[in-house]
């Protein structure tokens, strides 16, 4: 008697709470919908207005002050040889100077804060890169930065025993020569145009690390111990309270001609992204580099916060597996090009961008980021959402509807496959459901499977064992070369062509693409690749996506120093010139 009474009271309270929550959510989304377009436009204008007026001749940048940045995971190390995660990479932006930097267009440049003095000189045969260093760049302990540091860093990365994640970016180097203290010559074994992007690394200090055996480098305190970590950048490392924050102070002996304006940088670690957003809205934090899509609307409502909605340098795709071993019939369901095209027509990609990405996405038809020089644009085949066309193509390809099951069949094999993604990624979870529904409409059965990320990498991605996956590539540098993803030279487990895709014509073109250094010639080749690959579809290219950047009202920058979402770490683009008030 009493216990039933208790239960019903409990139930009542639950209903009340849930009801209250629903009501609250409904209110929120209502007001968002009505005001979203207005808000975003005011946001944009207040941003450019604010920064250009203070950045122009009239308003001088303010010197000093503290900027608070937010992240949701702690750093691992700031030793550039081992940096492999976003938080550590963020810290390196402030602490370390690069040999070369990228400009807004994604081209390799010697900026005032780069260690190189001028753009690299490439020999006529495309094999030799000569790099000249500034002769006044210094480590934070006063030691000059010289050719020895450059050579030490590259050779250490190239040594397999080091275990550096950057090893692949230097595998084309045949020889490095020190011409003099401030000149280094890289000789390549083959012409490899994307190599120029490998020169945008941060050198590590040879005078600190030279004596350390390579196998012990990863365990060495350099990069983790605040006091002994010698740095080269505009800020120096002051504090690391693990799991809580890092603090950087302006380097009083900074060598660059352009000096940083912000005195103190606090890099705060939050438990998750939503907490970061709350802190941004409250003003505790001035900069959040990745706002979760679900919070876009809430941030938009705050007129003080600049929300930069452009997606970052990464794209999502659905990969088909061409290896028959992964299918019960012993034959891949995706062997025919027409079938793949039908699937592309059946998917409502615009709908995914609108509903799942909340607008933070751009359609993709090829593996090149829209708007970059390699992007084939209209030359690539565009698949608009057209289920009728999809059905027609499937019928032409020999798929027949089994009226009993409602699933297409060919030679007695039903068109049914498993689509894997990593569990917990809510974007992929939602997109996989859209794909499931879209394909059910044309008679294809999709079973979605969310798998724990690291287990997925180990058991499915690395060995290339799946039927179809939902995954993304993030492009660390703006070079379009993607041979290691699409060429049949790179089958699993050694390569990243995880779907076992073969296209001899493309294999050849990928190779040609990096064998010429002439920009015009390269552009032509990559446009051609985009044309072919968008027709042949080893993947269905879905969209370029990303997290919006949120910047609080205290942060200012001139227009030419505004964040550049299309570059890796572009949310701190030209941060040396930013100021706070």
């Amino acid at each position: 008697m009493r216990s039933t009474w208790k239960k019903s009271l409990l139930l009542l309270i639950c209903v009340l709470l849930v009801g209250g929550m629903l009501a609250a959510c409904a209110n929120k989304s209502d007001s968002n919908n009505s005001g979203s377009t207005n808000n975003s436009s005011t946001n944009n204008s207040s941003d450019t207005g604010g920064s250009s007026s203070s950045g122009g001749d009239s308003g001088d940048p303010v010197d000093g002050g503290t900027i608070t940045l937010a992240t949701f995971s702690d750093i691992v190390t700031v030793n550039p040889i081992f940096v492999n995660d976003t938080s550590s990479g963020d810290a390196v932006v402030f602490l370390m100077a690069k040999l070369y930097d990228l400009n807004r267009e994604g081209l390799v440049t010697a900026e005032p804060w780069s260690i190189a003095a001028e753009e690299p000189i490439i020999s006529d045969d495309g094999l030799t890169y000569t790099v000249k260093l500034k002769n006044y760049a210094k480590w934070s302990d006063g030691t000059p930065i010289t050719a020895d540091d450059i050579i030490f860093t590259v050779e250490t990365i190239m040594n397999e025993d080091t275990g550096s994640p950057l090893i692949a970016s230097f595998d084309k180097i045949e020889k490095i020569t020190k011409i003099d203290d401030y000149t280094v010559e890289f000789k390549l074994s083959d012409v490899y145009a994307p190599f120029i992007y490998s020169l945008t690394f941060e050198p590590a200090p040879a005078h600190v690390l030279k004596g350390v055996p390579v196998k012990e480098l990863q365990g060495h305190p350099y990069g983790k111990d605040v006091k002994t970590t010698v740095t080269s950048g505009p800020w120096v490392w002051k504090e690391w309270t693990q799991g809580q924050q890092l603090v950087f102070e302006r380097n009083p002996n900074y060598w660059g001609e352009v000096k940083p304006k912000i005195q103190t940088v606090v890099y705060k670690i939050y438990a998750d992204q939503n907490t970061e957003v709350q802190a941004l809205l409250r003003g505790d934090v001035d900069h959040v580099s990745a706002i979760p899509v679900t919070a876009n609307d809430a941030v938009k409502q705050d007129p003080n916060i600049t929300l930069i909605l452009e997606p970052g340098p990464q794209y999502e795709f659905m990969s088909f597996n061409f290896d028959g071993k992964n299918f019960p019939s012993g034959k891949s369901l995706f062997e025919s090009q027409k079938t793949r095209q039908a699937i592309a027509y059946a998917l409502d990609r615009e709908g995914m961008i609108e509903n799942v990405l909340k607008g933070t996405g751009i359609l993709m038809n090829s593996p090149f980021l829209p708007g970059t020089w390699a992007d084939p644009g209209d030359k690539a085949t565009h698949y608009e959402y057209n289920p009728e066309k999809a059905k027609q193509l499937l019928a032409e390809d020999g798929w027949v509807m089994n009226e009993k099951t409602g699933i297409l069949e060919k030679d007695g094999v039903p068109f049914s496959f498993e689509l894997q993604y990593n569990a917990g990624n809510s974007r992929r979870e939602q997109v996989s459901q859209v794909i499931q529904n879209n394909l059910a409409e044309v008679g294809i059965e999709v079973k979605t499977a969310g798998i724990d990320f690291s287990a997925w990498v180990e058991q499915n991605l690395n060995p290339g064992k799946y039927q179809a996956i939902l995954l993304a590539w993030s492009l660390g540098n703006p070079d379009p070369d993607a041979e290691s993803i699409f060429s049949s030279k790179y089958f699993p487990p050694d390569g990243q062509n995880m779907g076992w895709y073969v296209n001899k014509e493309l294999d050849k073109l990928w190779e040609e693409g990096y064998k010429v250094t002439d920009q015009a010639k390269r552009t032509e080749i990559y446009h051609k690749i985009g044309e072919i690959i968008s027709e042949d579809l080893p993947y269905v290219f879905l969209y370029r996506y990303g997290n919006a950047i949120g910047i609080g009202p205290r942060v200012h920058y001139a227009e030419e120093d505004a964040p550049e979402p299309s570059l890796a770490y572009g949310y701190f683009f030209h941060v040396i010139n930013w100021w706070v008030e």
Partner: protein
Amino acid sequence: MGEYLIRRTIQAIVTLFLVTVFTFALIHLAPGGPTQVMIAPGVSPEAFEVQKRNLGLDQPVHIQYLQWMGRLLQGDLGTTFKNNLPVGDILWPTVGNTLVLMIAAWLVTLIIALPWGIYNSTKVYGISDQFASIVSYLGFAMPTFWFGIILQQIFAMNLKWLPLSDMWTYGKQGDIGDLVMHLIMPVTVLSLGFLASYVKYSRASMLEVLDQDYIRTARAKGVKESRVVFRHALRNALIPIVTILGLDLPILVSGAALTESVFNWPGMGRLFVSMANAREYSVLMAIVLVTSVFVILGNLLADILYAVVDPRVQLGRKGGGSK
């Protein structure tokens, strides 16, 4: 008493040993591993192998366990895989932070719950008693993270009376006033959860005792009601509560991962979540170990407190005599 302690210590060591074997096996059985988390997908298998070799992960699990145990016996909790930092340096500050939060929440709970429960036991089904039931159900039913977010929205975002998260404002580390401001919301959330059970327990326990013959006798003798409650009943009613306090001690240490995450409290619960994601075996093992030690200590403490609260309880086998 001495013999009793020795016996319990030996039991504790055996238990701890079994806990470590079991956890070590479980953690290593989980798919993926530190190398998978550390290296981006698609990197060549050789890179994995080099990493695994560097980290000693190419060894069989039982060898890894023995190596870990060997280091532990020398007082070494090991280092993290990803950056070779001593586990102790990461763990101990978070243990302290968690204790600050949990002890505050626990004290607040006891200060409210015990008097309230006692009062309710004297006015069963009165307004206060009914209200306590509602609060209890709320405490049980309401997800802590949700309640935490609601509090943040009201008191930090809208009213701006309280700081949103963290333990200290940057630059004010060590300022007690600042700490108290940061404690208010997480302590409220945690206390509401604890409160539910403690009000109920103290009320039920008091009711049971108040029903006993000797209380009736005391009342019959004409002893004042307040004296009956506080003098005669309370001491006996406290015994089961002490048990619960002892059993709850590990919660204090392991922390409330969710509450710590919502309020970005730099404690052990939050650390456990992030280290589990990174597959940092040595940190996870250390947290399990610390928590286990506290579970055992908590039980022991409860047993000893029995003897203090209730002279009839004797510790140890031969502990017959001295009355």
